[in-house]
């Protein structure tokens, strides 16, 4: 798996070694040292959470919420069972980084979850794994066995009275289960339909118990922060955008793949690492943070650095770090049609604006693509979108609208051309 490494999750992984994912190789590169440090030096829960806050680590699942702050919300003195859940339901089109983590460095995730369990006083965790990656689920289960055999998981970890059980849970094909409350419903063995919030998972989560949910990459960054210190992690990135991050680059580049680089790296440098544009074509546009992020045209993108603040200032979002690169041959109407179909297909159907609205958006974009569009269709799209966004139980509704708004903001003339001439400006795919 192509991973360009200048970051904390994959540092030191020798991909040529067939057992690079195993516990021996992990420990040889400093693995489980953070957990040992906590248990042997008597580092307290407060100290761990303070370190997490210092690091500036923001959730890598899409929303970018500060992890230290999230961990501090967990009621530590709650008398009953509490749960820790990892979100490896990676299904946001363009994103394939968590897959590489559980395949190539699963112990970093496992160690990060054990530390999270310790910091929040949680004794049971689950990792919810995307349905389509069964072989990766098996790899994760094998890594869990290794960790149990080595005494890092289970009862009385490393001879202390700290206990933590961790299990893998395999999904079976539903994008919506990436949304954290849908994931909890699914983990309970139900349809993956998001819950109304509040209450938030920190008070009413899995089986109704306080629960903390983080993304795979978030947890996998924890061992470095505890081993090397939050300040060091922060300094790898830039203020308010601490650390390094995995970017999944797909589309029209010479070397698609995962690139783990410091936050704040200029997009132009990332593009160079990917070997530049495929067939020497010109860059047209980039979706910088997974399919839900508004598209940005080449000139704006080339001015951006890859971090939360820069991309958000440019009018989009860093999201999951999925960078979808499109060259001059890409028809934006076709691109949007395919994305709109995805949201229509994946809406769980609970809220009327999302269930009906995503279908409506798709049908209108589809008819424009088919050469049957009407001049008023573009305003219609924006108006339908306006009636979905902010009016639904979960953020899938907004996620369906943002690509439409982004496309019409930056490539409206291409849509108008389509409507007027009933065909593409460019060949498309």
């Amino acid at each position, binding site marked *: 798996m192509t991973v360009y490494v200048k970051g904390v999750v994959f540092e030191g992984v020798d991909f040529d070694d067939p057992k690079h994912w195993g516990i021996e190789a992990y420990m040889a590169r400093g693995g489980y040292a953070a957990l040992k440090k906590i248990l042997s030096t008597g580092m307290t829960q407060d100290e761990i959470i303070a370190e997490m806050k210092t690091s500036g680590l923001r959730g890598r699942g899409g929303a970018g919420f500060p992890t230290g702050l999230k961990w501090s919300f967990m009621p530590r003195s709650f008398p009953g069972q509490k749960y820790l859940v990892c979100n490896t339901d990676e299904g946001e089109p363009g994103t*394939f980084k968590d897959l590489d983590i559980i395949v190539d460095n699963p112990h970093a995730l496992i160690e990060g979850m054990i530390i999270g369990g310790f910091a929040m006083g949680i004794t049971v965790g689950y990792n919810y794994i995307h349905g*389509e990656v069964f072989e990766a689920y098996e790899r994760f289960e094998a890594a869990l066995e290794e960790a149990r055999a080595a005494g890092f998981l289970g009862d009385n970890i490393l001879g202390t009275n700290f206990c933590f059980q961790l299990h893998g849970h395999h999904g079976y094909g539903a994008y919506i289960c990436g949304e954290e409350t849908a994931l909890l419903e699914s983990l309970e063995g139900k349809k993956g339909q998001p819950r109304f919030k509040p209450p938030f998972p920190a008070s009413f989560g899995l089986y109704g118990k306080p629960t903390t949910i983080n993304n795979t990459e978030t947890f996998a960054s924890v061992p470095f922060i505890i081993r090397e210190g939050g300040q060091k992690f922060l300094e790898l990135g830039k203020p308010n955008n601490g650390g390094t991050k995995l970017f999944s680059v797909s589309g029209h580049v010479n070397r698609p793949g995962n690139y783990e680089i410091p936050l704040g790296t200029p997009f132009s440098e990332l593009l160079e690492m990917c070997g530049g544009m495929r067939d020497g074509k010109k860059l047209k546009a980039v979706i910088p943070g997974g399919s839900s992020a508004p598209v940005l045209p080449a000139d704006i993108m080339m001015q951006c650095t890859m971090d939360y603040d820069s991309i958000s200032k440019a009018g989009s979002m860093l999201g999951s770090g999925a960078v979808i690169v499109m060259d001059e041959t890409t028809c934006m109407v076709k691109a949007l049609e395919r994305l709109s179909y995805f949201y229509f297909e994946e809406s769980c159907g609970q809220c009327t604006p999302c269930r009906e609205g995503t279908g409506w958006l798709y049908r209108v974009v589809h008819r424009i693509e088919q050469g049957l569009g009407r001049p008023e269709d573009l305003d219609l799209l924006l108006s339908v979108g306006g009636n979905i966004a902010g009016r639904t139980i979960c953020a899938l509704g907004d996620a369906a609208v943002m690509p439409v708004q982004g496309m019409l903001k930056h490539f409206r003339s291409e849509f108008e051309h389509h409507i007027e001439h009933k065909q593409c400006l460019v060949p498309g795919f």
Partner: protein
Amino acid sequence: MVTSNQAPTLSAESQAQIDRELAKYPADQRRSALMSALRIAQVEHRWLSNELIAVVADYVGVPPIAAMEVATFYNMFDMKPVGKHKITVCTNLPCALSGGYQAADYLKQKLGIGFNETTADGKFTLKEGECMGACGYAPVLLVNNHSMCNHMTPDAIDKKLAELE
């Protein structure tokens, strides 16, 4: 295969696998293992008939309707018979930019079927899929839900189909 009116059964191996899943959850939350139990049953029987879903529900200890809800909600469960090998092609945007539709067209032409169809000899079923979380390795196919195949150019598809004979 002998056809009979008897309810389908779960093999000892399937039961052992389901038991391993059940052990992961609190004793009063057996329902959490339902999705895995349905997956294991589907691997054994290739698709989920209503009768099989009821058997799984009974084994896990939930009402049949609860199992039916789960089976119909998640895309990878097959509620109708499928061929010996189910091939799902990802055509979402990132894959489409790197040959996803070409892979789909090649498969359609080679197998002589469209999406959601099965070859006359019952060997292959073709499906269109959404993002499988492997977009950097496009074109991507999933064989029988569990085996991910990357970089599926026409040559690679030929090779794969020959293996699946």
